[in-house]
């Protein structure tokens, strides 16, 4: 059942992306609610998947690679609904949908290779739950920051070309994208800091590798924001940094 739910939510996210992409390519895109509806529906199905896995393990469903990817996708969707919409960034959904679909596709592959088995724990550790949940929510914020960064780079390129096209017409103003990017990085860093602090209170201490990689991610994002506060680099630099940092975060996640 959980596998079917995973397939359905993947298809819904994919549907949202294809719908917007086709409309954009045909030059008939109008801001509307179809994409939001498809992502929303996909999110509900995704929640059902995580609920079933939570029931299976009797705890927060972050026990294997597939669940971790779905949880990151869930965090990204949450961030999209909570912040992406609040920033009123047109097309952010169109950019979010393919990332959600890709994360789910990888989760599907991992589930096929390693079907889910119950991994209950003897004694609940709330600090561990807090550490995992906050860290993955932070990843959701960083993913949305990377999406804003990618949108910024596309809009920047379009406007720099001297001949902005239909995509530029539908993308948000670059100043809004830059502002959203900074705020998402700050929110992500705050969540990750809480996650890192929680790690120090866990009953079973995390491995040195785990702590080292998590600290590495925390350091990278802190360095980006500190550099921004001190030197005010261009938003292009910030966008590129957010993309690279998110790529690095995903790699560390695989290692963890």
């Amino acid at each position, binding site marked *: 059942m959980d596998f079917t739910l995973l397939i359905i939510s993947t298809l819904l996210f994919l549907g949202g992306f294809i719908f917007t992409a086709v409309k954009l390519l045909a030059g008939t895109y109008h801001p509307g609610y179809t994409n939001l509806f498809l992502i929303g529906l996909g999110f509900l199905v995704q929640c059902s998947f995580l609920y079933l896995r939570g029931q299976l393990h009797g705890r927060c469903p972050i026990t294997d690679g597939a669940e971790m990817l779905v949880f990151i996708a869930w965090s990204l969707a949450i961030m999209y609904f909570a912040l992406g919409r609040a920033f009123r960034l047109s097309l952010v959904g169109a950019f979010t949908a393919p990332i959600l679909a890709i994360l789910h596709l990888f989760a599907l592959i991992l589930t096929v290779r390693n079907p889910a088995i119950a991994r209950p724990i003897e004694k609940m550790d709330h600090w561990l739950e807090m550490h995992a949940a906050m860290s993955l929510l932070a990843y959701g914020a960083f993913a949305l920051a990377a999406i804003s960064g990618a949108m910024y780079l596309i809009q920047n390129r379009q406007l720099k070309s001297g001949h902005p096209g239909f995509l530029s017409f539908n993308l948000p103003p670059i100043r*809004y994208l830059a502002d959203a990017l900074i705020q998402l990085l700050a929110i992500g860093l705050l969540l990750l800091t809480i996650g890192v602090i929680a790690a120090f209170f866990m009953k079973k201490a995390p491995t040195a590798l785990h702590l080292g990689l998590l600290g590495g991610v925390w350091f990278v994002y802190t360095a980006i924001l500190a550099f921004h506060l001190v030197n005010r680099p261009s938003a*292009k630099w910030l966008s590129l940094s957010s993309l690279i940092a998110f790529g690095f975060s995903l790699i560390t996640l695989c290692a963890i």
Partner: protein
Amino acid sequence: MPIFCLGVNHKTAPVEIRERLAFSEKHLPESLHAILKVEGVTETVILSTCNRVEIYGAADLPSSAMNSLTAFLVDHFDVKGHPIDFYHYDSERAAHHLFEVSSGLDSMVLGETEIFGQVKKAYASAHQAGTTGKRMNKLFQQSFLIGKLVRSNSKIQHGSTSIGSVAVDLAEKIFGNLNGCQVMIIGAGEMSRITAQSLVSRGASGIIVSNRSFDKAEELAAILKGKALRFDDWENSLSQVDILISSTSAPHPIIKTDAIRKIMKHRRGRDLLLIDIAVPRDIEDDIRKIDNAFLYNIDQLTTIAEEGKNRREEQIIFCRNLILDYLAAKGIGAIQDPSNPSSHNFTPHNGTSPITDP
């Protein structure tokens, strides 16, 4: 449908005629009641803008009412000696004309949105003056619905069609809201004024005008409610500016890449839009390579405006079909159907070609 439309617009009358026929907003209620006294007219709405003066009305015998109304207008505005080519539309043709007007299809700048507000205001004034009735109410309500339908289902509003509007669109794609954006004009030419006025109309403020002749700079600054700056000082003030418009007659670039690069370092990541409408160009082209600096020259602005115009023109047929489909669905269509007796009324009396249904 005993309704009619009589008027002139930018296509049928030059500005000298249109300005003589314009109804003053202050005296609009009196004018509406005066028209209502014209023989046969039972309801009326006056649409008087810079590009058109149109009188919509209801009458049991539209042709006869329009003849009386023409005589009234010639007398009222004292234009006996001027040959005025009023268009006379009645029945569905009048309705269709209003639908095209409120959709922006009959505007000088195709698809512009201002006309929709002007039609609404004209109707509201007439309604308040008590010169509308069942027919005008229905007609105008329908025109608002169709205006919205056309705009939201077509691309008639997409893209900019003039240098000024292209500059505004680009500025909004960079800064979002233009409120509080600082604008500097170098060279007090006509194009600079038009472009700056477009930006000011969308909220830009803090206009600084710099020109070799300081008197001219002061003159333009007064028009734009900004301040004049001596030509030697413009570079020092550039770090505060968001949008720079340059149109001097200098024979070589006056805004150099190195100078902008230096200024950008002090701007702490703030974007700068540079609009070069001078020929020969005032701004070095390499500036576009600097992060956060966006440079557009006259050719690029013109190309974007031309593309916008072409795109809008391509949409006319689609928009007209939208209107026809709507009317057909509502049961008052078949405008071009020869079997429909009402279609004989569609050829305008002034001989302009009727709308073609592709």
